[in-house]
């Protein structure tokens, strides 16, 4: 294998421009195709850049207009509010659970069924799991904290002490032992 460490750096860039014959400057079909392709790329690129300035400016203004909490939770407008659990309840949970807490997430069949329920539940659960770290989600019934999304609370056998609730049926609480 050839070691050509400085090949590019040392390549003579100038190779006798003065000796280029006039015929070489003529546009053959290949060169014409290259010119047309480059011109097309330039036009599309410049037009795209002009559009992008507007798009990026609008996004920057939108991001800047969000409140601190909007930004910390993620942008509801970007994905649709169905995916986000009620913020107030999550805020209460965040302030209540210690950082080493384990919690369960339970969904009932009627939780926000406006969109495809499976996806809504998965996204919502995914958001909580991510957002509440270092508090850790657990599937164990031993987990002392519970988010109940319109779930059947009878399985908690009356032991759930509700600490926060939303109008649309989310309960957050602690399971008494």
């Amino acid at each position, binding site marked *: 294998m050839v070691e050509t*460490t400085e*090949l*590019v750096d040392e390549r003579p860039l100038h190779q006798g*421009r003065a000796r280029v014959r006039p015929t070489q400057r003529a546009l053959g079909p290949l060169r014409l195709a290259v010119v047309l392709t480059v011109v097309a790329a330039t036009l599309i690129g410049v037009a795209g*850049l002009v559009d992008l300035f507007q798009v990026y400016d609008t996004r920057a203004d939108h991001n*800047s207009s969000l409140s*601190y909490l909007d930004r910390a939770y993620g942008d509801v407008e970007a*994905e649709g509010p169905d995916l986000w659990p009620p913020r107030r309840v999550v805020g209460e949970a965040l302030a209540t659970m210690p950082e080493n807490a384990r919690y369960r997430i339970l969904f009932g069949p009627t939780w926000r069924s406006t969109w495809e329920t499976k996806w809504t539940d998965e996204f919502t659960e995914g958001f909580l799991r991510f957002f509440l770290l270092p508090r850790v989600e657990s599937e164990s019934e031993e987990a002392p904290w519970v988010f109940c999304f319109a779930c059947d609370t009878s399985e908690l056998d009356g032991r759930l002490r509700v600490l926060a609730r939303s109008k649309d049926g989310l309960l957050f609480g602690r399971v008494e032992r």
Partner: protein
Amino acid sequence: MTVRAIAGLVVLNLVILGVGASVLWGIRGWRWWSAFLRLAGLAYLVGVASLTILLTLEVVLRIPFGLATFLASATLIAMGGVLVGALRGRSRPGLRPPRWRLGPPSLLTAAFAAAIALFLEALFRSTRLLPLFETDAWWVWTLRAKTLYFFGDLGPDTLVRATTLSYPPGLSLLHAAGFEAMGGPDTVTLHLQHWFFAVGFVAALVGLLLGRVRTAILLPFVLLTLVMPGFADRVNWAMADPLLAYLVAIGGLQLYLWLEDRSRWRLESATLLLGSAMLIKREGLILVLCVVAAALVASWGERRWAWPCVAAASGIALALAAPWRIFLAATGVRDAPTSGYLSFLDHPERALPSLRLVLETLFDPIWAGLGAIAVIALVLAFVAGERKLGAFGLTFLAASVLGSAFVIWSETAFEISQAPAVNPVIRMVLVTVLVVAPLVPLSLETAWRRGSPAGAPAVTRADHGRSRTGARVTLAWAIIGASLLLYPASMAAGYSGLALAGGAPRFPGPDECVLPATDARNVRVVLGYRETYADARALTARARASGLNATGVSLDDCGRLRVFLDDVPPGSAAGVVRAARAAGFEASLERDPDG
């Protein structure tokens, strides 16, 4: 969201650049720092690749992740690069060659350089305060980055679910390093890390092609690549696809250039880049196989010497990614489509619709025509007699299209649709388009050179900047300078026309929820803010013990717990504040919008 967080990311990326520079000096070396400037983008991506590989190995070996581990890893790689350089007899570089000067840019070059700089500035501005709305980041990338940050590993067993564990940890490790550098899990400023990745990619692309492709051909395609709506929309998302594309694109380009000039360092850097790509996303394996297939086809005429080298490089790249695969196997995690590897055999009816979907997406307007232009350019290169380049690009394109179609065919959970919620085809094709993008200007340069019967000279210094003097040179530099100063100047002047910033940047924090009590009729006396009820309860108890019996707690709009005295008559509020301060509280008066 703070200056501290941004500064932390700047330092992190300088460290990554330093690591990559050390590796590149070891495998390539350079005589002059002026030469390094051109390769800085490549060095950065090599740094990303090297760190990804080593940090992943450490996760597999259960070495706890943290700032100390990251810095030790960076130091280890940098020392390895220096050691290789010493063994290979690399010399210390000088500043610049004798009589070297920065060639004056043409007006065209200046205009495109300015356009690219403006794009990156606008992207930075729209990225800085971008909230983390990407659902895949919640599920995988940033979830695991936060887990690494808090726990030092991939977390308690209950957190690590099979569906997410099978994703390689590369991006999450880089995100976690970002959290360490920022001083906390700032998932908003984290998006800027993806801005740095993009800058590294642009710099690598330009740096590698600058000596081979005239700027009049190169820069329009760099700009076109950046402004593709399908890319520009996603470039700053906290997702793995763009980074995967950068690594495969530059790795593939290096592999092709190695076929051309047989420089060993190109093959070595390609090995690192392609090996790390497999640790960024599962699709990395398919894409690397596509690149390898392209290299094998392109080097058919020289297979006696080329194929063993390609096979060795591929083997090493696979070996670099192997520990993660072994780790998955050892933990019993399935790394297959949810319906199984052979499920496609049960659904033959999905084959053609999958292929059609990928092809339709490749030629979709969201790529600003680059899919079609790439095919034209590669065919032109082929027609011009540059069979190797044409074969490389067209083989990769075909293999990548078939690979993407196969993934969609196999995964029955994917609907045959471009809708991002039900099919990742746009993100898959994004990688394909970004990988062929560098080959387009290279192909057109070849076609241009061979487009004359007598053949034309290779790229000359005259093509980059003929002997320009006087007003045109001044104007060219002025254009570049203006592009760099436009955003800062608009902020200083408060001018927001032409999609400019129009004001000083905001660095929002929880303090923005505090409402000053100026002339307010309804006020409250706030004794302090706390993060947890435990702390808030302690403060409340202390206040009540001091005689402030009406002290209460409520959650404010910034997620903090406000410990306060409500419904304080405006006339006595100042006296209550004085009394509270005398009792040792940091009391303040705030407007109470609730009345």
